[in-house]
Every structure is written in C-alpha cells, then in structure tokens.
C-alpha cells in the first residue's frame, strides 16, 4: 500500500517536472525576453548586460532550476501585455473558472446518473432510447456549438437568461463568488450546462452500461430470489456497485472540464482563466501561457493522484496487486 502510494507520487512529480520543462522551454526558445525590454538605441553591450542581469547567461540547467524554484512560489514574472504579475492575474480569474467547473460537474452528475439508471433498468423503453439518441448527438456536437445553440434559444429567442459575462458576484476578499445572488446563478446556468453536457452524456452512457452489466450478475439474481423489493435490489445492490467506475471517470473528467472551460468561457465571455489563456495565445503572452500550463498540469496530476488513491481505498483488489508489484 505505502509502496504503491509512493510510486504514484513519484510518477506525479515526474510528470510535473516534464511539464515544467516544456513551459520553461517556452520561455527559453520562443522569443527573446530582452527584446521586450530594449529600445532601438540600446547598444550591444547594454543588451549583454541586461541578459546577464536576467541570468540568461547561466547554464540551461541552472536557469531551469531557478524557474522551478520560482514556480513553486507562484512567481511567473510579469505579463508581457498588461505588465502585471501573472500570479495576481491568475488569482483574480481562478474563482470564476473553479465555480464554473464545479457547477457543471454537479449538473453532469445529478442529471447523468438518474438518466443512466433509468436507461439501464428499462433499456427497451421509449424514454431510454430517446436518452441514447440525445446522448449520441451530445457527444457529436462540439462544445462551442452547444453554447451558441443555447444562447440562440434561451437568450435571443426567449430572452430568459443572460448570454454573456459573470454578473452578480460577491467579493469575499480572497474569492469572488456568484453563488450568493440570483443574478449570479442566472448567468451561471447557460455556461455550466454547456460545459457539463458532454460529461453528462458520458456519465449517462457509463451508468447505463454498468447497470445493465451488474443486473446480469449472480448476486443480483440471488437478491431477487431472496424476495427483496426491486427498489432495494436496484438501488441498494446494483447502483452501489456501478458507482465505483463513475467516481473514477468523474474525477478524471474534472480535469478536462477545466480544459474545456477555455471554449465555454470564450463563447460566454466568462472572465475565467481559460479566456485569459486564449487571449495570451493570441498575443503570444508567454508568462501567462506557461503559468496556465503549469497550473492546469498540477491540477490534472493532483486529481489523477487523488482518484488513484481513492480507488485503492474503495477497491480492495487493487491493494493486493499493488503490494505484489
């Protein structure tokens, strides 16, 4: 058990170092930072002096070490565009993205699991077939198209919900939230549904196939033979066992929700990290790009690690193979 955890943490650190290397090479090889600081009359000697002051003369490995050290303290320097510290910029945008991701994950779970359970229990019913068809369309439609369609229907045609921006936020000092006002919830609905729809279809299909598989097993037949009520069999015995893979997939999907937030945030002009990253890509603002990359990678690795460890806790079979290896 301990060996398994240590090995997984070792792997996680390796992945993070690789990503750090990529984001460091962005700095190192894409563009010359001194170009951003000098004017046309700067002499060659002065340029060399600036390079020396910035530490660009040192061996690459030393520079990389310094980069990792600074990154660990959230110091990514100044944005090329706005001349503000990258850490502050990201700190301002972080709550918006996190609340959006959280809301859409909740939507995906609370809509996807009941739909999947129903479709798994009554696979032949009309409603279940409808769910299957809709989920196929949901998987085929690109996120941005879903967003545009939702805006078209709910904002342009019916004028029910706001189509862009994050309104009604309350500042809590270290965190701005839109969960506390009605206006905030209203502006959150469309982006959250857009972002969560793909995950919802995924969870629905997963729960459906797992349910159908579990219902065929011997212990379900035995439970029925014992005369348990259908509700106890379906929810107490079957559903419980389908939820293990659902937890894993949801956990892993949390990472891609954060990544896909880039698209949703662009469609709805949601002031989160994704929108900032996209603007950074368009203007080649390397400090922001590399900071975002590292931050997202750390989130991914952390989520993967937690899911793996949870799995060990939930499923004893993995514990045994982990010990053997």
């Amino acid at each position, binding site marked *: 058990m301990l060996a398994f955890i240590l090995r997984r943490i070792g792997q996680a650190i390796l992945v993070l170092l*690789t990503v750090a290397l990529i984001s460091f090479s962005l700095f190192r090889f894409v563009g010359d930072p001194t170009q951003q600081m000098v004017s046309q009359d700067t002499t060659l000697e002065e340029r060399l002096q600036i390079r020396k002051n910035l530490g660009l003369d040192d061996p690459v490995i030393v520079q990389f070490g310094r980069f990792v050290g600074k990154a660990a303290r959230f110091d990514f320097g100044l944005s090329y565009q706005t001349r503000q510290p990258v850490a502050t910029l990201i700190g301002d945008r972080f709550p918006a993205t996190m609340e959006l991701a959280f809301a859409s994950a909740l939507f995906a779970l609370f809509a996807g699991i009941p739909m999947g359970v129903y479709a798994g229990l009554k696979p032949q019913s009309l409603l279940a077939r409808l769910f299957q068809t809709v989920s196929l369309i949901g*998987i085929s439609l690109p996120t941005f198209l879903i967003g545009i369609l939702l805006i078209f229907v709910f904002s342009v045609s019916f004028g029910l919900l706001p*189509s862009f921006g994050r309104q009604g936020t309350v500042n809590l000092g270290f965190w701005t939230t839109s969960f506390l006002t009605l206006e905030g919830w209203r502006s959150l609905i469309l982006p959250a549904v857009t972002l969560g729809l793909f995950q919802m279809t995924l969870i629905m299909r997963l729960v459906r196939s797992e349910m159908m598989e579990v219902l065929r097993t011997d212990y379900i037949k035995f439970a029925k033979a014992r005369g348990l009520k259908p509700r106890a069999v379906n929810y107490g015995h079957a559903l419980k066992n389908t939820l293990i893979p659902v937890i894993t997939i949801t956990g892993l999907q949390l990472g891609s929700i954060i990544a896909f937030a880039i698209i949703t945030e*662009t469609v709805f002009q949601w002031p989160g990290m994704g929108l900032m990253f996209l603007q950074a*890509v368009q203007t080649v603002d390397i400090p922001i790009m590399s900071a975002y990359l590292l931050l997202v990678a750390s989130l991914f690795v952390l989520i993967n690690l937690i899911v793996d460890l949870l799995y060990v806790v939930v499923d004893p079979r993995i514990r045994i193979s982990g010990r053997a290896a």
Partner: protein
Amino acid sequence: MQITPEDARSATLSTRQVQGSPSVMGRVLDSDIWYSFTRSWITMLAALITLVLILSAVFAHQIAPNDPFNLESLSLLDGSKPPFWSADGEWRFPLGTDQQGRCVLSSILFGMRISLIVGFLGVLLAASIGITLGLVAGYLGGTVDSVIMRVADVQLTFPAILIALLIDGTMRALVGTARSEVLVFWVLVVSIGLSFWVQYARTVRGSTMVERNKEYVQAARLIGLGNVTILFRHVLPNVVGPVLVIATINMALAIITEATLSFLGVGLPPTEPSLGTLIRLGNEFLFSGEWWVVIFPGLTLAILVLAINLLGDWLRDALNPKLR
C-alpha cells in the same frame, strides 16, 4: 458432429473459389462487414450522408451557386438576406447571405472542403507518427519502448484539444504566422497530428509485440532482411486493421478540433474560412437576428461529425469479433 452455419459458409466459399476466383465486388458483397452494413439502416444513412457531404465538398467549385471569394460578384445590396422560404428570401441565395452579401450555402460548401482537408491531413499525420512509433516501440522494446510510452502516458493525461491549442500557440509564436495563410493551414494540421498520435501508437505497439514473436518475422530475420523492411513490409499489414477504426473516429474528432481552434480565433483566418471560422464570424450576427449565418454552418458541422461518428461506431462493432 454438427454442421454450424460457419462451416456451411466456408464450404460454399471454398467451392466457389475452386470454380474460379470471384470478382472483387463479389467478395465485398459476400463479406461479414457488408452483411452487418446492410443490417443497420442508420449506418447506411450515415454512409449516404457522409458520401454526399464529401462529394459536395470535392465538387464545391462546380455546384456552389455563387463564388463567396470573388469580391467583384459580391454586392452589399444582397447583404443579410434570409433563406429562400422567408418572405424576403431569394432563390439565388438558398440559405441566405451574410452582411457582405456572401452566399451562406456556397461559404458552407467551401468551408466544409477546408475542414475535411485539414481533418484528413491531421488524421493522416497522427496515424503516420503513431504507427511508426508504435511499431518501433513494440518491435525494439527495452529503453526505446519505455521512453516512447512514457511520453504517450504523459500526453494522454491532457485532453487533445488543450494540447492542440498549446502546439498551435507555440508554433504561431515561433514562426510568426500573422502574414501567411499557407503557414496557418500547416500549423493547424501539425497541431492536430501531434495531439492525436498516442492512441495509434498504443494500439499498434500492442499488436506488434504479439506479431514480433511469430514465425514469419523470424523467417524474415533469418533471410537477412533489415528491421525497417520487416517492420513496414511484413509487420505493418498485420497490425493495421484496428487503426482503421481509430482513424474513422479520429476523423470526427479532428474536424471538431479544427472547428474549435478556428472558432477560438487561433485557426484558419476569415480569408480562408473553414466551418469553424464561419461559425465564429456568424456568431457576431446572432443577436441582430441573422441566425442563418451561424446556424447553417453549425448544423452542417454537427451532421458531418455525427455521420462520421456513426460510421466509426459501426466499423468498430463490425470488426470486433467479440460482439458478434
């Protein structure tokens, strides 16, 4: 011993082969894949739609009612016309026009052409990289194998769209694509290719590790063939089957990725619009009531991707013996 239907079929097959080799068409019509194809009307519909869309993209120059790129033929007087069934619509522009008077239907045809080309080239590049690395990793094993697969594992942790976005952004910064459309096109193809190779590599590696120990490979080695010849001439044909399924499903993903990048404004420019670019440009007019400028390209994209996905699903089931 009972005679199963399979035995009966193979018996008829062999007698037919004795009587003379059947034509290619006959072999196709007799295959399991064709049988499962004709069993599912959804698959046939998807195939028909895909075929029609691809053909209309290929012959866009011939069938498009107007030329959206010829500035001389555009007239601002034709701007913002709704589709033909509306009161103000005209048959000259079946699906209406945008603000500059460009025909939406023609833009879609040319846009789909670009989307399909980028998607196809992206998949081709991804498959080439993935197959080559998978063959090498599976055949050589050892350090080479673990290095390639480690890289694949790391890349698999991140969604492909994020990787495509990063590669795209970095390459734009490196080569300065602001001026060249051709360069933007290839940057897009390379970003898609580099973000989708992992799946091919993993699949091919697995089957190569099985093939590596078979007798025909040993025989080829024995008569002194080089590794490259053995890999590409002898092993490759035996491991390429599952790749077709991945490639079909990836085609849909690649088209979505291209459309997404173009929609985000880091893909193809308005002068060379793909479906994604059209949707981005049309999106700005959504609030002024000109819904047709964005909804029709969006629908086309959705139908194209859905049809290809359905074909891929069917191909996966048809080639998977476990499900028969």
